[in-house]
């Protein structure tokens, strides 16, 4: 079983995201073989021109969606951390949707069962297509690392200029 730090997920960078929704279209084509953002596993929120972000499943530890399912239709993969849905058990009751703080669980308009980002078997199409490189397929560990490096760079801009 992989360590917690090795589980990769799709993370959006609000500083880079421009709200173009290319990820939604790429996702729906990969997962549903059609263009339809309302069936995408990743959705973009534009609050105003300056605040844009694409949001998908964050592979929570002890995922609340799994815990919330009264029919045991959801299960978290030990291997990847993604949520596996048993479509025969799911009846679309939506408890998992309410349990998810990120709006990453959605109800399929036709099959009437829920769907969640499955990371495209380890090669997320949204990340591949994002024209702004605003999406990362990464681990939480690497994300915190990046933030640390960025903040130190910012704090020591002058010193950096002097030494390079």
């Amino acid at each position, binding site marked *: 079983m992989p360590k917690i730090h090795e589980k990769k997920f799709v993370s959006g960078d609000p500083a880079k995201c421009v709200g173009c929704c*290319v990820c939604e279209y790429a996702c729906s084509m990969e997962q549903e073989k059609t263009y339809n953002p309302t069936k995408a596993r990743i959705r973009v929120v534009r609050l105003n021109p300056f605040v844009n972000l694409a949001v998908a499943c964050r592979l929570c530890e002890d995922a609340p969606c799994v815990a919330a399912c009264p029919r045991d239709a959801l299960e978290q993969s030990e291997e990847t951390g993604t949520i596996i849905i048993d479509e025969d058990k799911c009846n679309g009751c939506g408890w998992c949707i309410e349990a998810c703080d990120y709006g990453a669980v959605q109800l399929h308009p036709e099959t009437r069962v829920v769907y969640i980002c499955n990371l495209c078997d380890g090669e997320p199409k949204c990340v591949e297509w994002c024209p702004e490189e605003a999406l990362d397929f990464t681990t939480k560990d690497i994300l915190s690392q990046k933030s640390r490096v960025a903040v130190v760079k910012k704090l020591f801009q002058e010193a950096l200029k002097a030494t390079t």
Partner: protein
Amino acid sequence: MSYAKQILRVDLATGKTEVEPLKEQMAKKYLGGIGLGMRLFLDYSKGGVDAFNPRNPLVFATGPLSGTMAPSAGNSYAVVSKSPLTEGIAESKAHGFFGAELKRAGYDAVIFAGKSDKPVYAWIDDDSIQLMDAQNLIGKSPYETEVAIREDLGDFYIRVSAIGEAGEKLVRIASIINDEFRAIGRTGMGAVMGSKNLKAVAVRGTNDVNVANPEEFTEFVRIIHERMKGPATRKYRTLGTPENVLVLNALAALPTRNFSQVTFEGAEKVSGEYLNERYIKKIIGCATCGMRCDHIGVVPEGPFKGATARVEFECLWALGPNCGVDRLDAIIEAIYQCDLYGMDGISTGVIVGFAMDCYENGILTKKDTDGLDLRFGNAEALVEAVKRMGSRKGWLGDVLAEGTMRAAEKIGKGAVKYANHIKGLELPGYALRTLKTAALGFSVSFRGACHLRSGAYSPDVKGKVDRFKIEKGRGKLVMDGEDLYNVVDSLILCKFSRGVFYEGIDEMAKYYTLATGIEMTPEELIQAGERINNLARVINIREGKGTREYDNLPPKIMNVPVPDEGIAKGAYVNQKEFDIGLDDYYEVRGWTKKGIPTIEKLKELGLDDLVSIVENKIRSKAPKKKGKGGK
């Protein structure tokens, strides 16, 4: 197949709706966007009906690629009707998110007919269509309307296309705005919408949009995405179109102070470089597009602090150099006000410039302006004039809200000498005395003065021709530009992305076939462009506005030599060269000397059913006096 294969008709008087199929032959002949929109307009309208008459239909049309992942074309729609400015054919396109939503709701076009007896908005929820009370939305800006409707209907992802106060008050240059900054800007479509008591169109579309050949289509989209990161879109991704300010200024081609001069001494202060360094806060994008070109400017301090607007060259020029204004904070505020009232920024700036010119020449006095000191360069007066126009406030606001052509007639006292419009539509920001291919192209454009009907400024600006004269051969340059742009506006590709089609029309034809499954050769596609231009011309002829005397240029371009020292000094368009240009253009178009499409030409293009409209016009011999109409 990426067409929805459905056309929706909404009778605003009764609330009744009807859906009819889009036939494949119709789709192939008119493509979508402005082509399909204009064909439907012709079929559902009668000649000679006033633009504000309930019987004037308002057509919203998506494109064959709308709703797909096609960058820039996936997100667009067009609006077509009769223009309250030109009284001829009107069309305008906008990108953003609304167009994709309308396609997903299941429509290639929506035709709004009639007039509601009270303010309503149309709520298109896939196949459920309702007219909703909009009394509480009256006076709200398009964006406020968008937010209020989303809250009212309780869905964050609903897309809205709406008018502001200008549209409600039938300001003839009113726009329709979707997604906060995206405008169906030109030709006064917001006023037509207002005349129908239609405040907004709100859409939720949940249907799939499929393409005929998903694998090859996706591969092609991938190639376009890659090219969008390259040189073809550099300008739009970096400084944006305001880069033009210094480029045109250096060419003595930047219209200044209502087209009086061709260079602006304040150009540096309103340049793309200056703008990006001090005002642009973020560059964002439309749905499906990897280019990202929306330069969002915010005024950080001063009297206009907080004003936020998408800044492009045209509006910046119209409300800046054209009014002699060199303050970007005031220009951003003026664009912001245009978006709040819902007005075309180009026409707004040209009208204010016209009013300033009248004021400077004593035709308008302080009494007429209620004390407003409308001198060129007065930034505060600019902003105030925009607000008055948007709300038809006072005598001045009410007169200017009629557009340059009608305002000049109402003001009288020789004001027509200062009116810069063609067919009633205000001129965009290219100095036509020093860009003469553009002069010819703008004059024959079917929707009135427009740089985007042919891109005819391009050979001038790029130095491919002698831009100080019109000669034989320019007609073909204009025609080729028009036919291509008709295709672009019917597939509704964003013109900023035109450069990414390295193989031009060949790749556009391939794109169309991959998406729709309808076989289309490049020859057939460019012929569709030609067909659409002829269709538009015939509609104008039906309205009595489509003949030679309406293909004209404003007095300032034809009669007044450029005063600026340097290469351009003394330049103007003379009647002789202009006639050579028109003759040349009509000849390559296969039109008569009066500018009427011949019966053979219409038949060649499969427009046999339009022959009856032109027949009588061709037979009548006596040509009307030149230079009479439109000025």
